[in-house]
């Protein structure tokens, strides 16, 4: 039995929501009642059935709607997808990775067949059946990175590795938490993270870079990151900040449950075989407060995390304007009882 893909929107009337099964599989990012940066990187290995780790590249009920939203963003602003000239080979690496993973994980929806460099890719949810020559860009309607990332959930950054550093030299970034690929493309690991507060002083990026430059083929790694978004909007780009920013001033005690969303990024890191680059998928999961608090443990824990977050972090994550309203709302769901260890619901 395949996935039933929802018809929904991430803009205008915002009809996005999670089914009850998808609420239970939500990758809640807090394993304890407080939060601070850490180099929380672990091997990206398969997790339990029914979790977002059931497959290493997760496809879920929002797939079709997310791909439609991506197409709208790209039509409006093609600069969200860029690849510096030396990154084409890495784009082919990524195309192979995503086709293989999606075909293995979801054979009822995706099929990849190969005869030497003659490939055929069938994507049933999006109605695509293309035959092409691997390595020959003239046989695809887009460059290889753009072609496959128009068919894969999440943002994708491809990093070139040279001089002991990682360089943000290609990407498809339409669902980002407020950073600009167009501005950051070509920067090294420290430069594109420059605006992040507190973490540089803690040596987070030095250690993370050392880890990432040592990632081996076939041994991907992952970490979770999080922020909050008002309305289930995927495109919270700085490019459009003047359009979505006013949403943050619309949170009231009455609409917190529907408007405020926890936004979790499942970031994974994969060595690419031909280019020796690293691809960094940033898979975004959204859940509104009304859905999240159906799990009492998550409600109690989120209350404590947001209440105790250092102001500098709250500011960086853009929570300041509605934080008090949110904490007040969540406090009513926190009876002060202890929470069990670990991420999962009770």
């Amino acid at each position, binding site marked *: 039995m395949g996935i039933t893909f929802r018809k929904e929107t991430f803009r205008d009337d915002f009809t996005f929501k999670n089914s009850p099964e998808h609420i239970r599989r939500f990758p809640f990012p807090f394993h304890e009642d407080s939060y601070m940066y850490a180099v929380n990187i672990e091997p990206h290995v398969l997790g339990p059935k029914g979790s977002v780790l059931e497959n290493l590249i997760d496809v879920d009920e929002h797939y079709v709607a997310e791909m439609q939203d991506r197409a709208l963003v790209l039509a409006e602003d093609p600069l969200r997808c860029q690849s510096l000239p030396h990154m084409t080979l890495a784009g082919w690496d990524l195309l192979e990775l995503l086709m293989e993973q999606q075909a293995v994980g979801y054979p009822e929806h995706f099929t990849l067949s190969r005869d030497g460099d003659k490939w055929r890719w069938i994507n049933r949810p999006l109605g695509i059946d293309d035959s092409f020559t691997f390595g020959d860009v003239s046989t695809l309607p887009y460059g290889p990175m753009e072609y496959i990332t128009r068919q894969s959930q999440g943002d994708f950054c491809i990093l070139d590795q040279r001089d002991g550093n990682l360089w943000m030299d290609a990407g498809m970034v339409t669902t980002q938490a407020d950073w600009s690929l167009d501005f950051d493309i*070509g920067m090294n690991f420290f430069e594109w993270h420059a*605006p992040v507060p507190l973490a540089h002083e803690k040596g987070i990026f030095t250690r993370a870079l050392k880890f990432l430059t040592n990632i081996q083929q076939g041994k991907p790694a992952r970490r979770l990151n999080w922020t909050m978004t008002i309305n289930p909007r995927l495109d919270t780009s700085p490019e459009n900040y003047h359009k979505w920013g006013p949403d943050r001033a619309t949170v009231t005690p009455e609409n917190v449950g529907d408007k405020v969303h926890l936004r979790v990024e499942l970031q994974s890191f994969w060595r690419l075989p031909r280019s020796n680059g690293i691809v960094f998928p940033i898979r975004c999961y959204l859940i509104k407060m009304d859905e999240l608090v159906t799990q009492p443990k998550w409600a109690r824990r989120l209350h404590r995390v947001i209440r105790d977050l250092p102001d500098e972090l709250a500011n960086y994550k853009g929570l300041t304007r509605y934080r008090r309203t949110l904490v007040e709302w969540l406090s009513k769901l926190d009876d002060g009882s202890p929470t069990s260890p670990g991420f999962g619901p009770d």
Partner: protein
Amino acid sequence: MAAKSIISRPVYGTLSPQPGKHHLFVADAEGALAITDLAAKAPDGFFADAHIIFIPGNDSKHVAALEALKPAQFYQGPSFASALPRLKQTLANAHMGLHLYLAGTEGLIGQAMQAALEAGIDHTSIQTEHRGSLARRIQCVHCKGITENVTTQPATCSHCGLLLLVRDHYSRRLAAFQGVCINAEDRSEIPPTEEIFR
């Protein structure tokens, strides 16, 4: 500026004579003084194969001092844009071992470095020295337009008119600081404008 900044913000040094024969200087306004200071430390004959591209600005101050160094080539241009074709050709035809020295305003250093990066020169091999105005070149993240010579915080985008927070986040590829709408969440909030990049 002594204020604590972030890692993507460029750091400038002091020009010093490098070993070798081929030296290309690009400077504007008071950047000329960085070149004459370097000349005081340089060995005899240092400028015999040097090329100076100079944009003096509103007056021709410093031109005579640079000419007195007797560089093999001296060019004086009315703007960076007018000097750019010449700079690009020089970089494209450069010999191995060319040393590049940039001095003056951040906008000049950034744009000359952008041309050098496009010509395949590694940015860490380029000598830079900041002299003169702290005015910034900014890219509006919203409309992508570049506004030159920004001296205030916040600043108005000269293309789309949004009021922008001028960040320290800097792109060498764009040769620009990032500008992000400062009152996106509530347009009625107008923070005071201060002249801080003079």
